[in-house]
Structures are given as structure tokens and as C-alpha cells.
């Protein structure tokens, strides 16, 4: 159900309900450089392209025309090759439907579950424009300003991607023995915005490594690189990739968080050691604190299940029957089961999983709730994936990545 204003839009010239829109952050020229998906207002499994979330670590690059684009593949391979988009499209293609999730999605709930306090709202969208302006000016937020401010449920979307398996390209290049990873480089460039990391950690009283101006890069372990569902994609949701989503070609790394899905791909380098990419040695890492010497990179997401209906903001609700609805997904395979508890986790009931259940895409689930007594209710739900992993999987970590804890919905019945 769309929770926002539903009246008063004209769609293709006809009066219709207002459509959900992206909450955008724009640059000085008015171009969207990041955006939050209005997840609680959407239906189905595929997030429409114009409300698909957008997060960028570096500056959004100027576009490259598909005819001018080439992808260089080098490193530990038999035959260094350079592919045009036409060349790439001659290889056997594949379509994958998968959830893209920002590593920091719902990070605010880590602190709420550990320390209590004010519960972050799933529909309380942050001021993206202010963020973008600070980024333009290179301003850093103070620890006080950061507070509990982290992305809530709006940096996740479901999409359908078409491209060529990375494995196909590597096969043609010929992997040399000893290869351990593929360094994926985008043509987005810039100096990492330190404010992003300070916000992620929730404080700004420590020193950060400043790598200077870099291209966005990630080194994907070979095993994941050879997964047939890991794609070089030129299409999303039934059309060519939009520039803001990484055109002409981006990586699709199903199950792994969005930072692995390198956009604006320009170079692949097969390597026989893991390089010290900034975005997997300094940021997007698990660790106990900024000073932790044993940080390690984040990879697959945990198991997640969120309640979208009812939200806390829907209270009070009348007595009677309500259908509790939500979404569930996992970083390692299809969702096998979703359970709902109405007594704070003492007893669990199986929720209905709505078909289809796909390996990398989320599912919608629902549970009919008959309630006769007025009062406060705490609804919780948890998911289990086909590998048997039960929510939650990811412990607290100082950068607050890959949150997959169980967040209750608090509802008042009158």
C-alpha cells in the first residue's frame, strides 16, 4: 500500500495515483548523485528504475557513450584483451534478478537494539540535499551532529540485470594459475568523502587514512568472480543501464553488498594477491573499532526480514484482522522460511511466503493477524535461508555494516 499521498498525479496524460519518487541528493548542477528508495511505498519484487536507490562513494563521472566505451582485461591472464560493448554482447548473456543493498542500510538499528533509545523510523528519510551540499563543500560533520543518523530502510532495491557472466570473459582471457582475485575498476574518480565514514562509525574523533584522488576499485575473490551469476551488466529492469546506475556496464555481484557492484566499469585486472583497495581495507570492513588491527573486508550479506506493514507510524489501528506483510532476503541464497512472533519471541508462527522464491531476489511474505484486544503489541519476524542461516548473522561492528538484526514493529490497537 502506498503510504504517501496517492491523489493527484497525471500519468501518461491520465489522472492517476501519485507515484512514489526517489528522495534525491543533487549536485550543484541539479543532477541526482544519490537517492533513497521509498521502499515502504512500493509493491512487487522489482524496484522501478526511477526510484532505485543510488549511493556513490566518489564523484559521479561524466558519461561515456556506449560506442566510445571499452573494457580492458589484464593481469594474470593468458591474453590481455579489450572489449567494446558490441564485443561483450556477442558473448552468451544471462539475466539475474537480485537485491542490491547498501552495506550501511538500516545501520541505525544496530545502536537501537544494543543500547535502546529512540527507534529509527523506516520512513524517516534523511535530508539528502543537505548531505550532498556538505559533500560539495567538503565539510565534515561533528560527532554531535552524527548522533544516531544512519540510513534506514531506503538503501535497498530489487532489480533485474542482464549482461555477461564475468566468468565468460575470464574464460576467454585465460586465467593463469595463482590468480586469487579480479580487481574491478570504475571510471568514477575522486577523493573519498571522509564524512561518509565518520557517519558510518557514528563518531568523528579518530584519524582516517586519506588516499587522495582514486578511481573506485574493489578486488573480488576469484570464487565469487567465477560464480555464473556474477555479471558484467549493461541492462537493468528491462532497459539499458542509466548513467547514474553505472552505464555503460556495471558489476552485478548477487548476495554481496552494493559496494561490490562496481559501476562505470573500465578495467578488470586478474591478480595473484589481494591488493589494498581503499574500499576494502579502510572502508567496508568489519572490525571492533577504528584502531582494530584485525579488520577484514565485508562480503556476502546476512539474512534479512523486515516488516513493512504495519509500520510503527500506522498506529493506532482498529481491532480486527490485519495482514502483516514484509520482505525477506539473504546474501547466500533463497529464503526458506519466515516466522512471525506476537509475544516477543516466545512462540513463532510460520508466515506465508509469496511465490516466487528466487536465489538472489527477495520474497514478499505475509501473516494474517486477528486481534480483538486493545493494547500495545510488539511484532517480530525472522527469516531463514536455504543454507540454513537464521537471522541475525552479522554481529555489531564499528562501521555498522550489514545489519540483519530483528527489528520489532510496535503497534497500538484501539
Amino acid at each position: 500500500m502506498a503510504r504517501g499521498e496517492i491523489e493527484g498525479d497525471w500519468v501518461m496524460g491520465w489522472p492517476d495515483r501519485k507515484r512514489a519518487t526517489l528522495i534525491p541528493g543533487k549536485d550543484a548542477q541539479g543532477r541526482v548523485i544519490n537517492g533513497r528508495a521509498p521502499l515502504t511505498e512500493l509493491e512487487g519484487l522489482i524496484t522501478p528504475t526511477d526510484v532505485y536507490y543510488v549511493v556513490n562513494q566518489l564523484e559521479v563521472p561524466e558519461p561515456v557513450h556506449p560506442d566510445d566505451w571499452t573494457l580492458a582485461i589484464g593481469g594474470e591472464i593468458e591474453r590481455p584483451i579489450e572489449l567494446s560493448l558490441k564485443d561483450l554482447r556477442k558473448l552468451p548473456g544471462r539475466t539475474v534478478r537480485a537485491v542490491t543493498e547498501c552495506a550501511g542500510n538500516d545501520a541505525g538499528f544496530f545502536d537501537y537494539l544494543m543500547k535502546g533509545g529512540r527507534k529509527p523510523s523506516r520512513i524517516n528519510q534523511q535530508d539528502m540535499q543537505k548531505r550532498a551540499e556538505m559533500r560539495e563543500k567538503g565539510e565534515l560533520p561533528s560527532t554531535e551532529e552524527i548522533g544516531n543518523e544512519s540510513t534506514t530502510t531506503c538503501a535497498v532495491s530489487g532489480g533485474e540485470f542482464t549482461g555477461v557472466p564475468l566468468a565468460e570473459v575470464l574464460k576467454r582471457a585465460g586465467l593463469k594459475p595463482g590468480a586469487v582475485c579480479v580487481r574491478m575498476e570504475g571510471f568514477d574518480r575522486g577523493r573519498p568523502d571522509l564524512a561518509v565514514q565518520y557517519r558510518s562509525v557514528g563518531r568523528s574523533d579518530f584519524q582516517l587514512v586519506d588516499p587522495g584522488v582514486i578511481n573506485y576499485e574493489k578486488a573480488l575473490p576469484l570464487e565469487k568472480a567465477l560464480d555464473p551469476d556474477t555479471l558484467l551488466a549493461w541492462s537493468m529492469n528491462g532497459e539499458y543501464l542509466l548513467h547514474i546506475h553505472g552505464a555503460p556496464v556495471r558489476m552485478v555481484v548477487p548476495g554481496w553488498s552494493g559496494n561490490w557492484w562496481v559501476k562505470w566499469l573500465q578495467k578488470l585486472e586478474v591478480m595473484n594477491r589481494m591488493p589494498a583497495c581503499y574500499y576494502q581495507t579502510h572502508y567496508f570492513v568489519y572490525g571492533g573499532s577504528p584502531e582494530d588491527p584485525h579488520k577484514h573486508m565485508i562480503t556476502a550479506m546476512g539474512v534479512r526480514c523486515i516488516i513493512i506493514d504495519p509500520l510503527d507510524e500506522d498506529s493506532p489501528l482498529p481491532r480486527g484482522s490485519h495482514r502483516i506483510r514484509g520482505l525477506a532476503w539473504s546474501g547466500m541464497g533463497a529464503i526458506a522460511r519466515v516466522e512471525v512472533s506476537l509475544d516477543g519471541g516466545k512462540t513463532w508462527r510460520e508466515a506465508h511466503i509469496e511465490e516466487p522464491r528466487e536465489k538472489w531476489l527477495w520474497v514478499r511474505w505475509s501473516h494474517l493477524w486477528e486481534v480483538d484486544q486493545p493494547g500495545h503489541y510488539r511484532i517480530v519476524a525472522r527469516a531463514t535461508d536455504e543454507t540454513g542461516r537464521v537471522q541475525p548473522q552479522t554481529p555489531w561492528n564499528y562501521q555498522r555494516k550489514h545489519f540483519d538484526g530483528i527489528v520489532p514493529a510496535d503497534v497500538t490497537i484501539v
Partner: protein
Amino acid sequence: MRVVVCVKQVPNPEIAASQFRVDEQAKTVVPVPGVALVMSPFDEQAVEAALRLRDRGHDVTITVVSMGTESARAVIKHGLAMGADDGVLLVDPAFEGADSYATALALSRAIGKIGGVDLVLAGRQAADWDAGVVGAGIAEMLGWPLVSFARELRVDGRAARVERMLDEGTEIIAAELPAVVTVSNELGAPRAPTLRETMRAGRKPVAVWSVADLGLETGEVGAQGARCMRERLFIPEKRSRCEFVEGGSPREQAANLARRLREAKLV
């Protein structure tokens, strides 16, 4: 061959006269909300003239140069999207209030700094002040030949072959390179940027130079370096006194008009 095209950002000259306003105190034109700043149309045709040299098989590197505020980057990008290779943006608060003299000084210095330039092109005049002076000024400051009001430009060895507009006809001038050529509307419509060139434009280099980068003093440029002063700016008053000649049919209207003109001893 290296070609420099000097371009200027102006308020869209297609604006309706009824929307046009001036601030008589500040002696400036009041920007109309929603009316875009564009590349002056004659300058667009100068870019076109440079591109046609390339179309004819010449190996040309085209640099678009503009003096203005940071917003002038948009017209440089437009030139790059049309097909130019790189851009130079002259931005400095000291450039403000320049007249044609101070503008020509800054541009000719920029052309010197670019180096190895064979041909400088500019529109015959900018669509704001309609002066048509800067191109000639650059030629004089560089000591190069000038051919103004070109309708066609070819290059033949070390000479430009330019067909220029006369009051009643045209003449073909052969000018030794390096030279300055100003382009008239008779050259024909400039090409529209394609999506591909627009995307390429975003990645082409644009250098930004200040007064100091040009080896000039702030006192030599902008309002301080100007030799001409604007004393007044106004919209000429028009008192309409049109007498509409009516009639029951076109024939009757025509007859009435002929009679009125005859009475006024105009025919």
C-alpha cells in the same frame, strides 16, 4: 593546425522584446528568470566553421576559449559537444566589467599562452552588445591579418581563403596564417551536438586561467582596463501611432491604403 574559437555566453537572444528589461541605475540587463544563457549564435557559427575545416579533411585541433564567470563553462562544453577538442575558461573577478578592449587583451594573451595557434575564429559580433570589435582587436593585438564577416572559410596550405560579406556581394580574401577570421550568419546553421559528442565533451579538458595566469595585472583587465564607458542603458521608447487601414475586402483595404499613402504624398 590549431584553431582557437573565441565564444561568449549571452542571454538567449530569442527572448521576446516584451520580456526584455534593463536596470538603468546599474546600466545592466536584468536577467529574465527561466531564460537560459547560451553561446552567442555567431560564435556558434564560428565553431561550425572550424568543424567544417575538419570535415574537409584538415587535421585540426580546436580549442574553445571564453572569458566570463564560472557559468561560461556551459558554453565551452557546448563547443566541445559540437566537436571541439579542448577548452580554456578565463575566470577572474578582475575580468568583470570589461569592454571590447579589455576583452581582446585577455583573449589575445590566452591565445599566446595556448601557443602554436594558426587560426582564431570568432563570431562577427556577440548577441548582447552587438559591438563586433573583439575579433578585430585580437588581430591587432597579435599583429595578425583579419578577415571579417566570413560566409565561407577554407584553408589552402599556409593561407586561409575566406569569402566575406560586402554590402552588395562578397569577396574572396586570401590571408596568410596565422590570421583572425570573424564569422557572419551567412555561414549557415551550426550543427547540433549529438548525444555521443555531448558525452565526450564531459571528458575533454577545460583549463581555467586567471588574470595572473595570463601574465596580466588586474589594472589592465575588466572595468579598470576598459577604454569605453557606458554612460546610460535604456530601452528606446516606442509610441505606437499606427493607423490601421480597414476595408470590407482585401481589395478595399488595398484601395484605402493606396489612398492614404497618396494623401500623405508617399506614393
